[in-house]
Protein backbone atom coordinates (compact mmCIF):
# COMPACT_ATOMS: atom_id res chain seq x y z
CA UNK A 1 0.00 0.00 0.00
CA UNK A 2 2.87 2.35 0.85
CA UNK A 3 4.36 1.58 -2.52
CA UNK A 4 1.12 2.23 -4.37
CA UNK A 5 0.52 5.59 -2.71
CA UNK A 6 4.04 6.93 -3.08
CA UNK A 7 4.31 5.47 -6.56
CA UNK A 8 1.17 7.27 -7.67
CA UNK A 9 2.31 10.52 -6.06
CA UNK A 10 5.61 10.28 -7.92
CA UNK A 11 3.74 9.45 -11.11
CA UNK A 12 1.85 12.72 -10.84
CA UNK A 13 4.95 14.85 -11.27
CA UNK A 14 6.30 12.49 -13.92
CA UNK A 15 3.08 13.00 -15.85
CA UNK A 16 3.65 16.73 -15.78
CA UNK A 17 7.09 16.61 -17.31
CA UNK A 18 5.95 14.06 -19.88
CA UNK A 19 3.10 16.37 -20.88
CA UNK A 20 5.65 19.10 -21.49
CA UNK A 21 7.72 16.84 -23.71
CA UNK A 22 4.59 15.59 -25.43
CA UNK A 23 3.67 19.11 -26.49
CA UNK A 24 7.16 19.71 -27.81
CA UNK A 25 7.45 16.46 -29.71
CA UNK A 26 3.83 15.85 -30.61
CA UNK A 27 3.02 19.36 -31.81
CA UNK A 28 6.24 21.21 -32.58
CA UNK A 29 7.82 17.94 -33.88
CA UNK A 30 11.03 18.67 -31.99
CA UNK A 31 12.60 15.74 -30.19
CA UNK A 32 13.88 17.87 -27.33
CA UNK A 33 16.67 16.09 -25.50
CA UNK A 34 17.28 19.20 -23.39
CA UNK A 35 13.90 18.67 -21.75
CA UNK A 36 15.43 17.27 -18.57
CA UNK A 37 17.68 20.33 -18.28
CA UNK A 38 14.61 22.54 -18.41
CA UNK A 39 13.25 20.56 -15.49
CA UNK A 40 16.50 20.96 -13.57
CA UNK A 41 16.45 24.71 -14.31
CA UNK A 42 13.02 24.90 -12.66
CA UNK A 43 14.43 23.02 -9.70
CA UNK A 44 17.49 25.26 -9.54
CA UNK A 45 15.28 28.34 -9.48
CA UNK A 46 13.25 26.91 -6.62
CA UNK A 47 16.41 26.05 -4.71
CA UNK A 48 18.08 29.42 -5.29
CA UNK A 49 15.06 31.47 -4.29
CA UNK A 50 14.39 29.32 -1.25
CA UNK A 51 17.95 29.42 0.02
CA UNK A 52 18.61 33.10 -0.69
CA UNK A 53 15.32 34.82 0.16
CA UNK A 54 13.23 31.99 1.65
CA UNK A 55 10.69 32.24 -1.16
CA UNK A 56 8.34 29.27 -1.11
CA UNK A 57 8.67 27.01 -4.20
CA UNK A 58 4.92 27.30 -4.58
CA UNK A 59 5.43 31.00 -5.33
CA UNK A 60 8.59 30.45 -7.35
CA UNK A 61 6.38 28.47 -9.71
CA UNK A 62 4.73 31.68 -10.84
CA UNK A 63 8.10 33.15 -11.75
CA UNK A 64 9.40 29.96 -13.34
CA UNK A 65 6.40 29.40 -15.61
CA UNK A 66 6.49 32.69 -17.56
CA UNK A 67 10.29 32.79 -17.57
CA UNK A 68 10.53 29.28 -18.94
CA UNK A 69 7.79 30.04 -21.47
CA UNK A 70 9.73 33.01 -22.78
CA UNK A 71 13.05 31.17 -22.74
CA UNK A 72 11.66 28.21 -24.67
CA UNK A 73 9.89 30.47 -27.11
CA UNK A 74 13.19 32.18 -27.85
CA UNK A 75 14.94 28.81 -28.24
CA UNK A 76 12.33 27.67 -30.70
CA UNK A 77 12.23 30.92 -32.62
CA UNK A 78 15.96 31.45 -32.99
CA UNK A 79 17.56 28.03 -32.71
CA UNK A 80 15.03 25.44 -33.81
CA UNK A 81 12.99 27.30 -36.40
CA UNK A 82 16.03 27.55 -38.74
CA UNK A 83 16.40 23.79 -38.48
CA UNK A 84 12.73 23.27 -39.33
CA UNK A 85 13.18 25.45 -42.40
CA UNK A 86 16.42 23.81 -43.43
CA UNK A 87 15.14 20.26 -43.10
CA UNK A 88 14.06 18.59 -46.29
CA UNK A 89 12.04 15.94 -44.50
CA UNK A 90 10.96 14.78 -41.07
CA UNK A 91 13.95 12.45 -40.72
CA UNK A 92 16.42 15.23 -41.36
CA UNK A 93 14.67 17.45 -38.84
CA UNK A 94 14.77 14.68 -36.28
CA UNK A 95 18.53 14.19 -36.65
CA UNK A 96 19.22 17.93 -36.60
CA UNK A 97 16.98 18.67 -33.66
CA UNK A 98 18.41 15.77 -31.68
CA UNK A 99 21.94 17.05 -32.21
CA UNK A 100 21.04 20.68 -31.57
CA UNK A 101 19.16 19.90 -28.37
CA UNK A 102 22.10 17.76 -27.24
CA UNK A 103 24.24 20.82 -27.61
CA UNK A 104 21.74 22.88 -25.66
CA UNK A 105 21.52 20.30 -22.91
CA UNK A 106 25.28 20.27 -22.45
CA UNK A 107 25.48 24.05 -22.56
CA UNK A 108 22.72 24.32 -19.95
CA UNK A 109 24.37 21.75 -17.69
CA UNK A 110 27.60 23.71 -17.99
CA UNK A 111 25.90 26.94 -17.00
CA UNK A 112 24.04 25.33 -14.10
CA UNK A 113 27.15 23.63 -12.76
CA UNK A 114 28.86 27.01 -12.62
CA UNK A 115 25.88 28.43 -10.70
CA UNK A 116 25.46 25.56 -8.27
CA UNK A 117 27.94 22.70 -8.46
CA UNK A 118 26.58 20.68 -5.55
CA UNK A 119 23.20 19.18 -4.75
CA UNK A 120 20.08 21.33 -4.62
CA UNK A 121 19.30 20.45 -1.04
CA UNK A 122 16.64 22.29 0.87
CA UNK A 123 13.83 21.29 3.13
CA UNK A 124 10.36 22.45 2.31
CA UNK A 125 7.22 21.10 3.97
CA UNK A 126 8.98 17.91 4.92
CA UNK A 127 6.25 17.12 7.43
CA UNK A 128 4.53 13.78 7.80
CA UNK A 129 1.10 13.64 6.27
CA UNK A 130 -1.35 10.78 6.57
CA UNK A 131 -3.33 9.60 3.57
CA UNK A 132 -5.42 6.38 3.48
CA UNK A 133 -3.45 5.07 6.44
CA UNK A 134 -0.10 5.66 4.78
CA UNK A 135 2.24 8.36 5.95
CA UNK A 136 3.89 10.39 3.21
CA UNK A 137 5.78 13.67 3.23
CA UNK A 138 3.47 16.64 2.81
CA UNK A 139 5.62 18.09 0.01
CA UNK A 140 5.03 15.00 -2.13
CA UNK A 141 1.32 15.28 -1.66
CA UNK A 142 1.23 19.02 -2.45
CA UNK A 143 3.35 18.46 -5.56
CA UNK A 144 0.95 15.75 -6.69
CA UNK A 145 -2.14 17.93 -6.18
CA UNK A 146 -0.56 20.80 -8.10
CA UNK A 147 0.51 18.46 -10.90
CA UNK A 148 -3.07 17.21 -11.17
CA UNK A 149 -4.43 20.76 -11.29
CA UNK A 150 -1.96 21.83 -13.99
CA UNK A 151 -2.56 18.67 -15.98
CA UNK A 152 -6.32 19.13 -15.77
CA UNK A 153 -6.06 22.76 -16.83
CA UNK A 154 -3.93 21.78 -19.80
CA UNK A 155 -6.37 19.06 -20.78
CA UNK A 156 -9.35 21.42 -20.62
CA UNK A 157 -7.48 24.09 -22.54
CA UNK A 158 -6.56 21.64 -25.29
CA UNK A 159 -10.03 20.18 -25.59
CA UNK A 160 -12.33 23.11 -24.85
CA UNK A 161 -10.69 26.20 -26.34
CA UNK A 162 -10.03 27.38 -29.89
CA UNK A 163 -6.26 27.80 -29.49
CA UNK A 164 -6.20 24.37 -27.86
CA UNK A 165 -7.99 22.94 -30.86
CA UNK A 166 -5.44 24.56 -33.17
CA UNK A 167 -2.67 22.91 -31.17
CA UNK A 168 -4.33 19.52 -31.50
CA UNK A 169 -4.88 20.08 -35.21
CA UNK A 170 -1.18 20.76 -35.76
CA UNK A 171 -0.40 17.64 -33.80
CA UNK A 172 -2.53 15.58 -36.17
CA UNK A 173 -1.22 17.10 -39.38
CA UNK A 174 0.73 20.29 -39.83
CA UNK A 175 0.09 20.34 -43.58
CA UNK A 176 -3.67 20.05 -43.26
CA UNK A 177 -3.64 22.66 -40.48
CA UNK A 178 -2.03 25.14 -42.84
CA UNK A 179 -4.86 24.57 -45.31
CA UNK A 180 -7.54 25.48 -42.79
CA UNK A 181 -5.79 28.73 -41.92
CA UNK A 182 -3.84 27.84 -38.80
CA UNK A 183 -0.54 29.66 -38.41
CA UNK A 184 1.50 26.50 -37.92
CA UNK A 185 4.76 28.30 -37.17
CA UNK A 186 3.12 30.31 -34.38
CA UNK A 187 1.23 27.39 -32.89
CA UNK A 188 4.38 25.24 -32.93
CA UNK A 189 6.41 27.94 -31.19
CA UNK A 190 3.66 28.33 -28.60
CA UNK A 191 3.37 24.59 -28.01
CA UNK A 192 7.13 24.31 -27.61
CA UNK A 193 7.22 27.22 -25.18
CA UNK A 194 4.25 25.91 -23.23
CA UNK A 195 5.81 22.46 -23.06
CA UNK A 196 9.02 23.93 -21.69
CA UNK A 197 7.12 25.97 -19.11
CA UNK A 198 5.20 22.92 -17.91
CA UNK A 199 8.37 20.87 -17.63
CA UNK A 200 10.12 23.62 -15.68
CA UNK A 201 7.20 23.88 -13.26
CA UNK A 202 7.39 20.11 -12.91
CA UNK A 203 11.03 20.60 -11.93
CA UNK A 204 10.12 23.17 -9.31
CA UNK A 205 7.63 20.74 -7.81
CA UNK A 206 9.98 17.74 -7.95
CA UNK A 207 12.76 19.69 -6.24
CA UNK A 208 10.64 19.92 -3.09
CA UNK A 209 10.95 16.20 -2.45
CA UNK A 210 13.81 14.85 -4.59
CA UNK A 211 17.34 16.18 -4.29
CA UNK A 212 18.64 17.07 -7.73
CA UNK A 213 21.92 18.26 -9.10
CA UNK A 214 22.90 20.14 -12.22
CA UNK A 215 23.79 17.10 -14.30
CA UNK A 216 20.83 14.84 -13.54
CA UNK A 217 18.64 16.22 -16.32
CA UNK A 218 19.38 13.44 -18.79
CA UNK A 219 17.83 10.87 -16.44
CA UNK A 220 14.60 12.85 -16.41
CA UNK A 221 14.75 13.27 -20.18
CA UNK A 222 14.94 9.48 -20.41
CA UNK A 223 12.00 9.00 -18.10
CA UNK A 224 9.88 11.59 -19.88
CA UNK A 225 10.68 9.98 -23.23
CA UNK A 226 9.80 6.54 -21.97
CA UNK A 227 6.50 7.85 -20.66
CA UNK A 228 5.68 9.65 -23.90
CA UNK A 229 6.44 6.57 -25.97
CA UNK A 230 4.56 4.26 -23.63
CA UNK A 231 1.55 6.57 -23.59
CA UNK A 232 1.71 7.24 -27.31
CA UNK A 233 2.98 10.47 -28.85
CA UNK A 234 0.44 13.27 -28.47
CA UNK A 235 -1.82 11.26 -26.16
CA UNK A 236 -2.26 13.03 -22.82
CA UNK A 237 -4.45 10.34 -21.31
CA UNK A 238 -1.89 7.72 -22.25
CA UNK A 239 0.92 9.81 -20.78
CA UNK A 240 -0.87 10.05 -17.43
CA UNK A 241 -1.38 6.31 -17.19
CA UNK A 242 2.17 5.63 -18.39
CA UNK A 243 3.55 8.07 -15.79
CA UNK A 244 1.58 6.31 -13.05
CA UNK A 245 2.96 2.95 -14.20
CA UNK A 246 6.52 4.26 -14.24
CA UNK A 247 6.09 5.88 -10.81
CA UNK A 248 4.72 2.65 -9.37
CA UNK A 249 7.35 0.37 -10.87
CA UNK A 250 10.20 2.67 -9.84
CA UNK A 251 8.93 2.98 -6.29
CA UNK A 252 8.44 -0.78 -6.07
CA UNK A 253 11.94 -1.50 -7.37
CA UNK A 254 13.50 1.16 -5.15
CA UNK A 255 11.86 -0.11 -1.97
CA UNK A 256 11.90 -3.85 -2.65
CA UNK A 257 15.22 -4.35 -4.42
CA UNK A 258 17.59 -1.37 -4.57
CA UNK A 259 17.19 2.38 -5.18
CA UNK A 260 20.12 2.24 -7.59
CA UNK A 261 18.09 0.18 -10.03
CA UNK A 262 15.28 2.60 -10.86
CA UNK A 263 16.79 3.48 -14.22
CA UNK A 264 17.19 -0.20 -15.05
CA UNK A 265 13.51 -0.68 -14.17
CA UNK A 266 12.57 2.19 -16.47
CA UNK A 267 14.59 0.53 -19.22
CA UNK A 268 12.83 -2.76 -18.69
CA UNK A 269 9.49 -1.04 -19.14
CA UNK A 270 10.81 0.72 -22.21
CA UNK A 271 11.98 -2.56 -23.68
CA UNK A 272 8.62 -4.22 -23.07
CA UNK A 273 6.83 -1.28 -24.70
CA UNK A 274 9.12 -1.40 -27.74
CA UNK A 275 8.65 -5.13 -28.11
CA UNK A 276 4.93 -5.36 -27.56
CA UNK A 277 3.26 -1.97 -27.94
CA UNK A 278 5.55 0.41 -29.87
CA UNK A 279 2.49 2.41 -30.90
CA UNK A 280 1.72 3.32 -27.27
CA UNK A 281 -0.75 1.95 -24.76
CA UNK A 282 -3.83 3.25 -26.56
CA UNK A 283 -2.33 3.83 -29.97
CA UNK A 284 -3.49 2.01 -33.02
CA UNK A 285 -0.99 0.20 -35.14
CA UNK A 286 -0.05 2.29 -38.15
CA UNK A 287 -1.29 0.78 -41.37
Amino acid at each position, binding site marked *: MDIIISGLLLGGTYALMAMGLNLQYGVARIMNLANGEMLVLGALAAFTFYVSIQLSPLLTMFIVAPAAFLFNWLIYRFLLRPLVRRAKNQGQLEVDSILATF*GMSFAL*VGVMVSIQGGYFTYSFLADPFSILGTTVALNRFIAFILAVIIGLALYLWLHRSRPGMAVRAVAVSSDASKLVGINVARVSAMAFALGGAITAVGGTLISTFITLDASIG*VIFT*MKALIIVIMGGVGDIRGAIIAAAILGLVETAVASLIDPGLTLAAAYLIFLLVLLFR*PQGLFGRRAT
Partner: protein
Amino acid sequence: MNGKEVQSLTAIIVCIIAAACFPLIADGYWMSIGVTAMMYMALATSWALFSGPTHYISLATAAFFGIGGYLVGTGMSDYDLSFWLMMAISAVVATVLAALIGLATLRLSGVYFVIFTLGLAEMIRNLVSWVQNNFLGSRGLYVLTDFTDADIYWMLLTVAAAVYLLGWLINRSRLGFALRIIGNDETVARHVGINTAWSKVLLFMTTGFFAAIVGAIIAPRYSYIEPNLVFKPELSFLVVIMALLGGTHRLWGPIVGVIPFTLLWEAISISFPNYTTLLLGLAFLLIVYFIPRGLIGLIEDLVERSRA
Protein backbone atom coordinates in the same frame (compact mmCIF):
# COMPACT_ATOMS: atom_id res chain seq x y z
CA MET B 1 39.73 -3.18 -58.61
CA ASN B 2 40.32 -0.16 -60.81
CA GLY B 3 43.16 2.36 -60.71
CA LYS B 4 41.45 4.78 -58.38
CA GLU B 5 40.79 2.08 -55.82
CA VAL B 6 44.37 0.89 -55.92
CA GLN B 7 45.40 4.50 -55.38
CA SER B 8 43.16 4.97 -52.33
CA LEU B 9 44.23 1.64 -50.89
CA THR B 10 47.87 2.63 -51.25
CA ALA B 11 47.14 5.95 -49.55
CA ILE B 12 45.52 4.10 -46.65
CA ILE B 13 48.51 1.79 -46.25
CA VAL B 14 50.95 4.71 -46.34
CA CYS B 15 48.92 6.53 -43.66
CA ILE B 16 48.87 3.43 -41.46
CA ILE B 17 52.63 2.99 -41.73
CA ALA B 18 53.21 6.68 -41.00
CA ALA B 19 50.92 6.44 -37.95
CA ALA B 20 52.76 3.33 -36.77
CA CYS B 21 56.03 5.28 -36.69
CA PHE B 22 54.61 7.92 -34.34
CA PRO B 23 55.73 6.24 -31.06
CA LEU B 24 59.32 6.21 -32.33
CA ILE B 25 59.51 10.00 -32.32
CA ALA B 26 56.99 11.02 -29.64
CA ASP B 27 57.90 11.68 -26.01
CA GLY B 28 55.72 10.73 -23.03
CA TYR B 29 53.33 13.65 -23.26
CA TRP B 30 52.72 13.36 -26.99
CA MET B 31 52.51 9.60 -26.68
CA SER B 32 49.62 9.88 -24.26
CA ILE B 33 47.85 12.31 -26.58
CA GLY B 34 48.57 9.92 -29.42
CA VAL B 35 46.90 7.07 -27.53
CA THR B 36 43.85 9.21 -26.84
CA ALA B 37 43.63 10.32 -30.46
CA MET B 38 44.02 6.77 -31.72
CA MET B 39 41.32 5.58 -29.33
CA TYR B 40 38.89 8.20 -30.64
CA MET B 41 39.90 7.44 -34.21
CA ALA B 42 38.94 3.79 -33.83
CA LEU B 43 35.73 4.68 -31.97
CA ALA B 44 34.65 7.51 -34.28
CA THR B 45 35.34 5.59 -37.49
CA SER B 46 33.44 2.55 -36.28
CA TRP B 47 30.63 4.84 -35.10
CA ALA B 48 30.45 6.45 -38.53
CA LEU B 49 30.40 3.05 -40.21
CA PHE B 50 26.89 2.64 -38.85
CA SER B 51 25.64 6.17 -38.22
CA GLY B 52 27.14 7.78 -41.31
CA PRO B 53 25.10 6.08 -44.00
CA THR B 54 21.97 5.38 -41.92
CA HIS B 55 21.76 8.73 -40.01
CA TYR B 56 20.87 6.81 -36.86
CA ILE B 57 22.69 8.54 -34.02
CA SER B 58 24.07 5.94 -31.66
CA LEU B 59 24.95 7.00 -28.13
CA ALA B 60 25.82 3.50 -27.03
CA THR B 61 29.58 3.85 -27.53
CA ALA B 62 30.23 4.43 -23.83
CA ALA B 63 28.19 1.35 -22.94
CA PHE B 64 30.17 -0.97 -25.22
CA PHE B 65 33.45 0.71 -24.31
CA GLY B 66 32.59 0.25 -20.64
CA ILE B 67 31.77 -3.42 -21.17
CA GLY B 68 35.21 -3.89 -22.69
CA GLY B 69 37.04 -2.12 -19.89
CA TYR B 70 34.98 -3.58 -17.10
CA LEU B 71 35.10 -7.19 -18.25
CA VAL B 72 38.87 -7.00 -18.68
CA GLY B 73 39.04 -5.59 -15.14
CA THR B 74 36.81 -8.27 -13.59
CA GLY B 75 38.40 -11.15 -15.46
CA MET B 76 41.96 -10.21 -14.66
CA SER B 77 41.40 -9.01 -11.12
CA ASP B 78 38.86 -11.50 -9.77
CA TYR B 79 39.38 -14.60 -11.88
CA ASP B 80 43.02 -14.38 -12.98
CA LEU B 81 42.14 -14.79 -16.62
CA SER B 82 44.37 -13.51 -19.38
CA PHE B 83 43.94 -10.10 -20.95
CA TRP B 84 43.45 -11.56 -24.43
CA LEU B 85 40.76 -13.98 -23.35
CA MET B 86 38.83 -11.21 -21.58
CA MET B 87 39.15 -8.95 -24.60
CA ALA B 88 37.64 -11.66 -26.80
CA ILE B 89 34.84 -12.32 -24.27
CA SER B 90 34.00 -8.63 -23.95
CA ALA B 91 33.83 -8.26 -27.73
CA VAL B 92 31.40 -11.17 -27.94
CA VAL B 93 29.27 -9.80 -25.08
CA ALA B 94 29.10 -6.34 -26.65
CA THR B 95 28.25 -7.75 -30.07
CA VAL B 96 25.44 -9.85 -28.64
CA LEU B 97 24.15 -6.87 -26.67
CA ALA B 98 24.27 -4.71 -29.80
CA ALA B 99 22.34 -7.36 -31.68
CA LEU B 100 19.64 -7.47 -29.00
CA ILE B 101 19.37 -3.67 -28.85
CA GLY B 102 19.31 -3.50 -32.61
CA LEU B 103 16.61 -6.14 -32.92
CA ALA B 104 14.46 -4.38 -30.31
CA THR B 105 14.80 -0.82 -31.60
CA LEU B 106 16.01 -0.71 -35.18
CA ARG B 107 12.81 -2.26 -36.55
CA LEU B 108 11.08 0.95 -35.43
CA SER B 109 11.73 4.59 -36.15
CA GLY B 110 15.14 6.08 -35.53
CA VAL B 111 14.02 8.12 -32.56
CA TYR B 112 13.44 5.03 -30.43
CA PHE B 113 16.96 3.91 -31.14
CA VAL B 114 18.49 7.24 -30.11
CA ILE B 115 16.46 7.33 -26.92
CA PHE B 116 17.34 3.78 -26.04
CA THR B 117 21.05 4.35 -26.45
CA LEU B 118 20.90 7.71 -24.64
CA GLY B 119 20.70 6.26 -21.13
CA LEU B 120 22.22 2.88 -21.89
CA ALA B 121 25.69 3.47 -20.45
CA GLU B 122 24.20 4.92 -17.27
CA MET B 123 21.77 2.01 -16.92
CA ILE B 124 24.49 -0.61 -17.38
CA ARG B 125 26.68 1.24 -14.89
CA ASN B 126 23.84 1.12 -12.36
CA LEU B 127 23.34 -2.60 -12.95
CA VAL B 128 27.06 -3.35 -12.73
CA SER B 129 27.49 -1.34 -9.52
CA TRP B 130 24.50 -3.11 -8.02
CA VAL B 131 25.80 -6.57 -8.87
CA GLN B 132 29.24 -5.62 -7.59
CA ASN B 133 27.97 -4.18 -4.32
CA ASN B 134 25.59 -6.99 -3.52
CA PHE B 135 27.18 -10.12 -4.87
CA LEU B 136 30.85 -9.59 -5.53
CA GLY B 137 31.77 -7.34 -2.65
CA SER B 138 34.74 -5.64 -4.22
CA ARG B 139 34.60 -2.20 -5.78
CA GLY B 140 37.92 -1.59 -7.42
CA LEU B 141 39.53 -3.82 -9.99
CA TYR B 142 43.15 -3.85 -11.03
CA VAL B 143 44.42 -4.39 -14.53
CA LEU B 144 48.12 -4.98 -14.30
CA THR B 145 49.98 -5.70 -17.50
CA ASP B 146 53.40 -4.78 -18.81
CA PHE B 147 52.00 -2.90 -21.82
CA THR B 148 53.59 0.48 -22.45
CA ASP B 149 51.76 3.42 -23.97
CA ALA B 150 53.37 2.55 -27.28
CA ASP B 151 52.01 -1.04 -27.13
CA ILE B 152 48.54 0.28 -26.45
CA TYR B 153 48.94 2.74 -29.28
CA TRP B 154 49.91 0.01 -31.74
CA MET B 155 47.05 -2.20 -30.65
CA LEU B 156 44.62 0.68 -31.14
CA LEU B 157 46.13 1.42 -34.50
CA THR B 158 45.56 -2.19 -35.52
CA VAL B 159 41.93 -1.89 -34.48
CA ALA B 160 41.53 1.43 -36.29
CA ALA B 161 43.09 -0.05 -39.43
CA ALA B 162 40.79 -3.06 -39.20
CA VAL B 163 37.76 -0.77 -38.85
CA TYR B 164 38.96 1.21 -41.81
CA LEU B 165 39.50 -1.79 -44.05
CA LEU B 166 36.16 -3.22 -43.02
CA GLY B 167 34.50 0.08 -43.87
CA TRP B 168 36.25 0.11 -47.22
CA LEU B 169 35.06 -3.42 -47.95
CA ILE B 170 31.51 -2.62 -46.83
CA ASN B 171 31.39 0.44 -49.06
CA ARG B 172 32.22 -1.75 -52.02
CA SER B 173 29.77 -4.47 -51.05
CA ARG B 174 26.05 -4.98 -51.52
CA LEU B 175 25.58 -4.21 -47.84
CA GLY B 176 27.18 -0.77 -48.22
CA PHE B 177 24.99 -0.02 -51.19
CA ALA B 178 21.94 -1.12 -49.23
CA LEU B 179 22.91 1.13 -46.32
CA ARG B 180 23.26 4.17 -48.54
CA ILE B 181 19.79 3.56 -49.93
CA ILE B 182 18.42 3.18 -46.40
CA GLY B 183 20.02 6.49 -45.45
CA ASN B 184 18.48 8.25 -48.43
CA ASP B 185 15.02 6.83 -48.09
CA GLU B 186 14.13 3.89 -45.94
CA THR B 187 10.75 3.33 -47.58
CA VAL B 188 12.36 3.06 -50.98
CA ALA B 189 14.94 0.69 -49.57
CA ARG B 190 12.23 -1.59 -48.23
CA HIS B 191 10.36 -1.50 -51.53
CA VAL B 192 13.34 -2.58 -53.57
CA GLY B 193 13.62 -5.60 -51.34
CA ILE B 194 16.37 -4.66 -48.90
CA ASN B 195 16.07 -6.24 -45.50
CA THR B 196 16.53 -2.88 -43.78
CA ALA B 197 16.33 -4.09 -40.19
CA TRP B 198 18.90 -6.80 -40.71
CA SER B 199 21.37 -4.50 -42.51
CA LYS B 200 21.14 -1.94 -39.72
CA VAL B 201 21.48 -4.51 -36.95
CA LEU B 202 24.52 -6.05 -38.62
CA LEU B 203 26.31 -2.72 -38.87
CA PHE B 204 25.38 -1.75 -35.34
CA MET B 205 26.88 -5.02 -34.14
CA THR B 206 30.23 -4.14 -35.71
CA THR B 207 30.14 -0.80 -33.88
CA GLY B 208 29.57 -2.59 -30.58
CA PHE B 209 32.26 -5.13 -31.33
CA PHE B 210 34.95 -2.54 -32.01
CA ALA B 211 33.98 -0.22 -29.15
CA ALA B 212 34.31 -3.11 -26.68
CA ILE B 213 37.72 -4.05 -28.04
CA VAL B 214 38.89 -0.44 -27.75
CA GLY B 215 37.58 -0.34 -24.17
CA ALA B 216 39.46 -3.54 -23.38
CA ILE B 217 42.72 -2.25 -24.87
CA ILE B 218 42.48 1.02 -22.97
CA ALA B 219 41.87 -0.73 -19.64
CA PRO B 220 45.56 -1.39 -18.86
CA ARG B 221 46.15 2.34 -19.19
CA TYR B 222 43.89 3.07 -16.24
CA SER B 223 45.24 0.09 -14.24
CA TYR B 224 42.48 0.72 -11.68
CA ILE B 225 38.96 0.09 -13.01
CA GLU B 226 35.73 1.29 -11.48
CA PRO B 227 32.28 1.28 -13.08
CA ASN B 228 32.13 5.08 -12.83
CA LEU B 229 35.38 5.36 -14.73
CA VAL B 230 34.65 3.18 -17.73
CA PHE B 231 30.93 3.83 -18.20
CA LYS B 232 31.23 7.55 -18.81
CA PRO B 233 28.31 8.83 -20.91
CA GLU B 234 30.45 11.79 -21.98
CA LEU B 235 32.53 9.45 -24.14
CA SER B 236 29.56 8.70 -26.43
CA PHE B 237 29.05 12.39 -27.04
CA LEU B 238 32.71 13.09 -27.71
CA VAL B 239 32.77 10.33 -30.30
CA VAL B 240 29.65 11.70 -31.99
CA ILE B 241 30.98 15.24 -32.03
CA MET B 242 34.35 14.24 -33.45
CA ALA B 243 32.77 12.17 -36.20
CA LEU B 244 30.37 14.99 -37.08
CA LEU B 245 33.14 17.57 -37.03
CA GLY B 246 35.05 15.59 -39.63
CA GLY B 247 32.01 14.61 -41.65
CA THR B 248 30.34 11.22 -41.77
CA HIS B 249 29.67 10.89 -45.48
CA ARG B 250 33.24 9.78 -46.17
CA LEU B 251 35.05 6.93 -44.52
CA TRP B 252 38.05 9.07 -43.62
CA GLY B 253 35.85 11.94 -42.35
CA PRO B 254 35.96 11.08 -38.63
CA ILE B 255 39.76 10.98 -38.69
CA VAL B 256 39.83 14.57 -39.94
CA GLY B 257 37.64 15.51 -36.97
CA VAL B 258 39.47 13.47 -34.33
CA ILE B 259 42.92 15.03 -34.58
CA PRO B 260 42.01 18.73 -34.18
CA PHE B 261 39.32 17.98 -31.62
CA THR B 262 41.59 15.82 -29.46
CA LEU B 263 44.20 18.57 -29.37
CA LEU B 264 41.57 21.23 -28.72
CA TRP B 265 39.95 19.14 -26.01
CA GLU B 266 43.28 18.49 -24.35
CA ALA B 267 43.93 22.25 -24.25
CA ILE B 268 40.42 22.99 -22.96
CA SER B 269 40.59 20.34 -20.24
CA ILE B 270 43.81 21.90 -18.96
CA SER B 271 42.91 25.58 -19.27
CA PHE B 272 39.19 25.54 -18.44
CA PRO B 273 38.52 22.34 -16.48
CA ASN B 274 35.28 23.76 -15.08
CA TYR B 275 33.77 24.67 -18.40
CA THR B 276 34.24 21.45 -20.37
CA THR B 277 30.52 20.62 -20.39
CA LEU B 278 29.52 24.09 -21.49
CA LEU B 279 32.12 24.16 -24.24
CA LEU B 280 31.15 20.68 -25.41
CA GLY B 281 27.58 21.93 -25.77
CA LEU B 282 28.65 25.01 -27.69
CA ALA B 283 30.85 22.90 -29.98
CA PHE B 284 27.82 20.70 -30.73
CA LEU B 285 25.73 23.75 -31.60
CA LEU B 286 28.44 25.26 -33.78
CA ILE B 287 28.77 22.08 -35.80
CA VAL B 288 25.03 21.55 -36.25
CA TYR B 289 24.40 25.13 -37.34
CA PHE B 290 27.50 26.08 -39.25
CA ILE B 291 29.22 22.96 -40.52
CA PRO B 292 26.44 20.37 -40.84
CA ARG B 293 28.48 18.34 -43.34
CA GLY B 294 31.66 18.51 -41.30
CA LEU B 295 35.11 19.76 -42.22
CA ILE B 296 35.19 17.47 -45.23
CA GLY B 297 31.93 18.94 -46.49
CA LEU B 298 33.47 22.38 -46.04
CA ILE B 299 36.57 21.42 -48.00
CA GLU B 300 34.50 19.81 -50.74
CA ASP B 301 32.39 22.95 -51.05
CA LEU B 302 35.50 25.10 -51.33
CA VAL B 303 37.01 22.87 -53.99
CA GLU B 304 33.73 22.95 -55.89
CA ARG B 305 33.60 26.73 -55.73
CA SER B 306 37.19 27.22 -56.86
CA ARG B 307 36.50 24.98 -59.85
CA ALA B 308 33.37 26.88 -60.87
